[in-house]
């Protein structure tokens, strides 16, 4: 099987977050990491598919380290991973991050503008940092190195 020995991927799971602007930031930041910043190593997981899909999503989440990216303290991404698959390797709470960064703007969930995208980029970089920790420690290897 492809997943013996050290994993070659990192699963990144965004909360679905339709209700909150931080949810939209979470989804888009994960997508940016996957498409632009760490392609090939990042695999995005789909949260509701844990429940609705066949085993694929759950099995994969068990086989690789998972970083949960949550929009708020309800931590759906983290909790659902724990419920359906196992421990998360790392987690981000965007609302807490925004507080830390002193962001107090009114943000839009449906029409992300310049400000929202700027914050999305910053969150993406936070995810990248966590991925790089796993790569540097050798816990995860790139496919061509494995």
């Amino acid at each position, binding site marked *: 099987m492809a997943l013996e020995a050290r994993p070659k991927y990192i699963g990144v799971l965004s909360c679905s977050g*339709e209700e909150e602007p931080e949810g939209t930031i979470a989804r888009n930041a994960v*997508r940016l990491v996957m498409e632009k910043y760490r392609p090939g190593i990042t695999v995005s997981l789909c949260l509701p598919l844990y*429940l609705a899909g066949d085993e694929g999503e759950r099995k994969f989440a068990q086989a690789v380290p998972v970083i949960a990216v949550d929009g708020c303290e309800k931590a*759906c991404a983290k909790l659902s991973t724990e419920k359906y698959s196992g421990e998360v390797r790392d987690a981000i709470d965007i609302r807490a991050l925004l507080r830390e960064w002193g962001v107090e703007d009114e943000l839009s969930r*449906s029409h992300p503008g310049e400000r929202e995208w700027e914050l999305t980029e910053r969150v993406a970089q936070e995810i990248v940092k966590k991925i790089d920790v796993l790569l540097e420690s050798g816990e995860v290897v790139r496919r061509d190195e494995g």
Partner: protein
Amino acid sequence: MSEKKVYVIPCSGIGKASASAGREATYRVVEELMPERCETLCLGLLTTGDEEACGKVRDNIVVAIDGCAKDCARKNVEAAGKTPEIAHRVQDYLKKRKDLKPEAVLDIGEGGRKLVEVMSRELAAEIEGLLEGGD
């Protein structure tokens, strides 16, 4: 007329442009076309089994919008103990308007935006019909 809310719940569809279109259509309905009656809700809350969210979908009217045939939105609503009054897939709209394909996840493109417009109008009309006929 009942005082029930209408929860329009799209799939979270991280990997599909059609799911992005479903989400955008949802926002259009709940924020612009029918803001007084409709709301949305994080699907993730249903996956984790959040009591408050599950209660909301059980006690109100639910519209599930899915981005593919895996039907995550519908299935997660059902797992919360509720059969959605309306359940659609984005593909059902696309079948009728195949020139309006959403392009990419982050930017669904011109065709995708037109599809969102068509979907949200039809959806709003369908919800109106349900509210008028229902009680």
